[in-house]
């Protein structure tokens, strides 16, 4: 299910994963688990919940789970693109807060106006991060850390305390649905399809993973590295802003101080658990979606069985480390074999 892989030596080369020759054959080895472990874990956890959790398999419960996970999926996909380039975006939570802070100010222009201004907040922060990272070559972690703290500060200054939002458009987006499917979930599905097409069918997607595989080689090969990198951070910012819009719509309120706290960690976890390597060069869109669903389900399972939030948090931390460890382990073993 590897959507696209590039060996570091040849950035623009077609997918050439070790063992690509026998891709057709099914082998149950470490590589299979690395690529498909997240789907397996998801299925196992669903089955376990069907057995042990009462009322798990009801439409209401399923609906609630999907509505809750939808914004996380949207942020995680932006994060997956950034991680695919070998970078990281710690500012996503602050961008969500910033979006939440500006929406009430522009409700006078109607639903569309407020929505657009909210998304513009993501474009601006993404453009700032992308420019500083791609042109000035500041490490992504520092640039986005600075925006994370500064952005949250600005959100608190312009947003202040919790404001309730009484706008029919936002109410419909947050709690309405078409043919039984909530709008929030539909938006997430559209984002999944768009990102998947972007990564599998466009030159941009090809450039993105090439840069993640080996930025220097990509540059020497004449790829527009700075432009692609900037675009990736803008996309991550816009998707984070969209997630902020979804949450504001769902809560019918804007709370810049608390919205999106620690979301960056959840998103990184979803991406890593989904099998995208932190070193870049590969983006697994469907894996990321499964990763987000898995993390949501793990927390739900723990909380549904009276395990407190604090313990759930510690379990999540352990899963992050284990998932990254499994990745690094597989890659190291593979390298030593080569």
């Amino acid at each position, binding site marked *: 299910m590897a959507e696209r892989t590039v060996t570091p030596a040849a950035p623009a080369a077609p997918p050439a994963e070790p063992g690509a020759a026998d891709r057709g054959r099914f082998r149950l080895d470490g590589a299979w688990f690395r690529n498909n472990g997240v789907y397996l874990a998801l299925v196992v956890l669903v089955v376990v919940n069907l057995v042990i959790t009462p009322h798990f398999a009801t439409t209401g419960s399923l609906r609630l789970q999907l509505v809750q996970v939808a914004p996380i999926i949207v942020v995680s996909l932006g994060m997956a693109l950034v991680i695919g380039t070998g970078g990281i975006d710690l500012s996503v939570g602050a961008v969500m807060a910033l979006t939440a802070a500006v929406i009430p100010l522009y409700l006078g222009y109607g639903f569309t106006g407020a929505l657009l201004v909210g998304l513009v907040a993501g474009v601006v922060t993404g453009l700032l991060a992308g420019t500083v990272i791609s042109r000035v070559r500041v490490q992504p972690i520092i640039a986005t*850390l600075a925006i994370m703290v500064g952005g949250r500060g600005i959100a608190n200054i312009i947003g202040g305390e919790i404001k309730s939002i009484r706008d029919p458009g936002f109410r419909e987006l947050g709690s309405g649905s078409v043919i039984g499917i909530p709008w929030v979930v539909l938006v997430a599905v559209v984002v999944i399809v768009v990102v998947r097409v972007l990564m599998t069918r466009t030159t941009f997607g090809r450039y993105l993973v090439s840069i993640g595989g080996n930025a220097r080689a990509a540059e020497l090969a004449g790829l527009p590295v700075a432009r692609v990198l900037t675009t990736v951070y803008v996309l991550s910012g816009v998707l984070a802003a969209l997630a902020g819009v979804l949450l504001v719509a769902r809560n019918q309120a804007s709370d810049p101080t608390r919205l999106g706290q620690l979301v960056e960690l959840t998103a990184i976890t979803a991406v890593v658990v989904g099998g995208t390597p932190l070193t870049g060069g590969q983006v697994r869109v469907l894996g990321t979606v499964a990763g987000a669903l898995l993390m949501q389900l793990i927390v739900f399972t723990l909380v549904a069985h009276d395990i*407190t939030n604090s313990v759930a948090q510690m379990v999540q931390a352990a899963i992050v480390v284990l998932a990254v*460890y499994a990745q690094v382990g597989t890659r190291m073993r593979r390298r030593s074999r080569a």
Partner: protein
Amino acid sequence: MSTVSTPEPTLTPTGARPQRVQLVQRVQRQGALVVLVLLCVYASFQFDTFASSSNVRSIGLQASFLAVIALGMTFVIFTGGIDLSVGSVFALGGVLAAWGSQYGAAVAVLLPLAVCGLIGLVQGLIIARGGLAPFIVTLAGLLFARGLLLFISDEGGTVYKVPADSSFRDLAQGSFLGIGYPIWLVVVLYLVGALMLHRTSYGPTVLAIGGQEDAAQLMGLPVVRTKVLTYVASGLLAGLAGVLIASYTSSGVPIIGVGTELQAISAVVLGGTLLAGGAGTVFGTLVGVLLLQVIANVINQVGSLNSNWQDVVSGAILLGVVVLQRYLAGSTRR
């Protein structure tokens, strides 16, 4: 100000004019000090209360907590790593100290140090032995320490108080020669840090790892041991800062320390330490800490600005400094 550097290409520029290089390196190393002095001069003219002894003492005390954390961060960044867990570990140390103070001052100090040192040890082992990226391991550490802290404090609902008669309160509230114990402690710790950097084999090893880890490994330096030790020290120092704040406020507040990692990183970077690792100074970090604290103090003096502006200004300063660093590094290399 003393600087140690490994023979790294970025620091031995070829082709650039030596005078210009010297100027650039001086700006890189002393820039924060110049800004600090200018800001202090400006503030003491602008605000009557700024240079008063009580305000200076309060800046010193406030800065001491961050200074302790930033010292550990300095060595971590020397190795080319990063420790995002320090804010949570700091808060955890505070809650453990306040909880432990009911069993005596010794427990209040040793329990947090043991737990925070252990967290540092586990992170260090995973990073150095497992070969995982420091930021992801310490990001998980941030989450874990926050979870543990909430677990201890009944999901954040309980704030443990230090008993009124406990000698533990004196640790941060007492003073010697009119200067609070925490400030003395910071002076001692930074002197020890500078000695470690310049007078022991640990210092050059840390910088060599940051300069080029593979080369350090090939030279036979104890890479794994040094990295583990560095993360243990960072955990211990963050825990110690927690102990100090618990003693200072006589309570263990669960919500402190959010964003402290950024402040610590900012202080280190402002002090002229390269984020890529391999070069920097210990006392530069102290200047960075003081600069951040003076900025916070000045923002407080300007009545119309609320505390959120501190976040905005620290974020902007960090971004500005790294951009400047990149620009200066680029101009010496070409």
